[in-house]
């Protein structure tokens, strides 16, 4: 879900995705290679992202991943679901 969110604003290559997540979460969350790429492949399979070639900051050809409309829809659904669950948990933590 986080990967999808990160890709919402613009398309990034694999390393950039990991970096951004790490950065934006104030270094709390780190996505390892072993988790990132299988997940990216699964998202390619499901059609939530597409991959296209681009040039990286270091002048190297690398694949950039971009969110597709289905991906956006899925992201919205997942975020909504996550919100619902978090709210429910918070309610319990507050009142129980």
């Amino acid at each position, binding site marked *: 879900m986080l990967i999808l969110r990160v890709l919402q604003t613009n398309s990034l*290559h*694999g390393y950039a995705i990991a970096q951004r997540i790490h950065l934006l979460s104030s270094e709390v969350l780190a996505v390892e290679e072993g988790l990132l*790429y299988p*997940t*990216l*492949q699964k998202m*390619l*399979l499901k059609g939530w992202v597409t*991959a296209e070639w681009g040039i*990286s900051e270091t002048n190297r050809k690398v694949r950039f991943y971009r969110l597709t409309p289905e991906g956006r829809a899925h992201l919205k659904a997942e975020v909504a679901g996550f919100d619902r669950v978090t709210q429910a948990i918070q309610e319990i933590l507050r009142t129980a």
Partner: protein
Amino acid sequence: MGELLRRTRYLFNRRRLDAELESDMEFHREMAARAGRNNFGNTLRMRERAQEAWGWTWLDRLVQDVRYGIRILARSPGFTAMAVLVLAIGIGVNVAAFSLFDMVALKPLPVRDPDLILRLERRSPNAYTSEMAYPSFAFYRDHAKTLSAAMAVLGVPPMQIDDDLQPTSASFVTPNYFPELGTQAAYGRLIDSARDDSATAPPTVVLSYGFWQRRFGGDPSVIGRVIHLSKKPVTIIGITPFDFASLGGQRPDIWMPMVQQPYFIEGSKVLTDWNDSSVRMWGKLAPGTPAKVAEQELRALTDQLRKQHPEAVWDQEYLQSSPGGHMQVMQPEMYQVAAMVGVLTLLILAVACANLGGLMLARAVTRSHEIGIRIAIGAGRARIFRQLCTESLLLATLGSVAGLAVGCAVIRIAISKLDGPKWLSATPDWRVLLFTVGMTVAASLFFGLAPALQIARQRQQRTIARQILVGAQVAASCVLLIVAALLLRATQHALYTDPGFGYQQLVSVDPQLGHHGYTPAASRAYLDQIQSRLQALPGVTSVSLVKLPPLGHAVSRARREINGHALLMYPNWVEPGFFKTMNIPLLTGRTFYPAEKNAVIVSESMARQQWPGKNPLDQKLGDGDTKDTVVGVVGDAHINALSDDDATEQYWAAQQDDMPGMTVMVRAGGEPGSLSPTIKAISENLAPTVLPEIRQIKLLYHENVSQIEQVAGVVSLIGIVAVLLAGIGIIGLVAFTVSQRTKEIAIRIALGAKPAAVLSAVLRQFRWPVVVGLVVGAGSAAAASRLLRVALYGVSNLDPAGYAGAIGVLMAIVIIAALLPARRALRLDLARTLHYD
């Protein structure tokens, strides 16, 4: 759906996409290294995990297994070759049998709408006939709304074309026959409803393609030519196509419109006689109507018909419909025979698979080293099991491709030798291919599963599996050999038993006076005249009359219970001189007086079965008020059931009313063939409109015998195949067992044991399986052979000679199988063997 597409696209672009992923991950690594983080991890493993997401790993593994399997099989070419051979035989036999069944019963005829065609036959609880009267047919045709069309075929005895010596087979059909089948004429036109439906239309005839080639040299100018059929002029209007498919598998040489039958056969009342059941009826369902609905309507019509014409319809009669769109209209008994053959061929496959299973088990021992290593490295048992199964499937596929080739070759030979219809081809259709695939899977399960399980669980030392396999092989081979032996005995019996009458010099002359409209008195006059003229010929020894001639077109048979005995009775009506003409010995009593009433002559077996121990003369026979007295006993003469030992005959004296249906039997002093032209001349002279069918009994008998001989040939082949397979299997297994324990044998012999004792110790493990196999095999064969009774003429299904022969052959194979490897073991170079580690 989109996901599936993406997955498939990945599959096709795999290399490129995997390379891209690799470059991605490498880039990631570079960047991470720059930032100072070096947590590498296992690159390959991560890549594999990423690729797993696409869901094609099972395919990867399969390809790996197949490649490995091919390598393994290529490494031991001897084993592979033999395994493929054994499988080819086992599967090939099954494919051939199924192809045959497919051609006969499952393949639709290449005509229009074959699935709408029905064959309609008259049935009642007590009787069954495949033909009906033409007026009945017309009634059904005119009133049945569920049938869009009704066709009828009338078979007649062969007719003479111009002045040919050999008559030609002929059929009369209703004018809609060819149009309904959608046949296109090869040349000219075919019989159609517009031009050939009235008796006043000019007479026409259609030739079959083969006949046109043979008799007229394939000359297209015969269209429009006038020829003479049974002395009547008729115009040839067309030729049927080369690959013409007719209904019911009949293949006459010439076809004529039904309404013109009385033109050719003068005096014939076939078209108007409600009592004369002689046409075969087919119907075409109206589109969208199921057969059951049509049957119901026909039932209602049958009841209606009975009210109008009770003589044409039996009590409780109904019309039974069977699918008519296949080469053969299947009767229930035929399905039984087919099932029997199927079981036999499956048995052969079982033997082949048991064979192979044993060999694979044996090989498993040699591979224990390799498999041990794989397990040590970390392969799961499931993985190894899967891989072994893939190997079996691979072997089975190879075997079944070979088997398919073998089966098709056999069918092709069969079609050409048995002169099959030209539209049949040996190339497998989807049903046969599907069957082959099924066989492959079944076979690989049979022979692959057990060894694979054993190997995966690393428990090869147990010999139970091996013993079971040997036992199963012995049992299955035993059944096959016993069945083959019984069938061979039956055919031998059929070939060499004396039929009981002197067929060598007999000629039957059938004038079919009834079909020409002769009254009994006129028939009597004709028959007397022709008999006296024939008797006067120098080459003729004796002449007489019979109603159902030997090997004739009509047979009458009844199964009755008389005084508690079940008898198979073949009645006949004859003149007094019949027995002398036929060379049937008169054992006691006397022959008939002319037209004697209430007298019956019985065959010897009937007398023996019916009145055991008593004098058969003057015994009474028959139900009803007037019983017939036995006046004589003759020797058995199965003139219409050559190979059936259970048949008994009864003869009554022919009366005046029987005369229109009588056939003349002529005994020649010398060669009967030379009499035919003379007989023809005499009959033409006597009555030009009557053209009797003249047949030499000797030729008919030989035809009958050659069919039996062909069957015997096929059965012997099956027996040989069974023997071969059993031999290969047992030899292989025993040889392997011995070779496994070569070292042990060498040590024992070196220590002074007698070779024979050592060998018997090694082979002892097979003692019980063989014995149990033989017992089970013989037992199942005995139980199942009851089903064979229908084919085992004259031979009991527990025939001791047959069983003894089969078991003897099998024992011989087993002993040879044990001794062959034994000889090798005995000639071991002990020093070499013990050194070799």
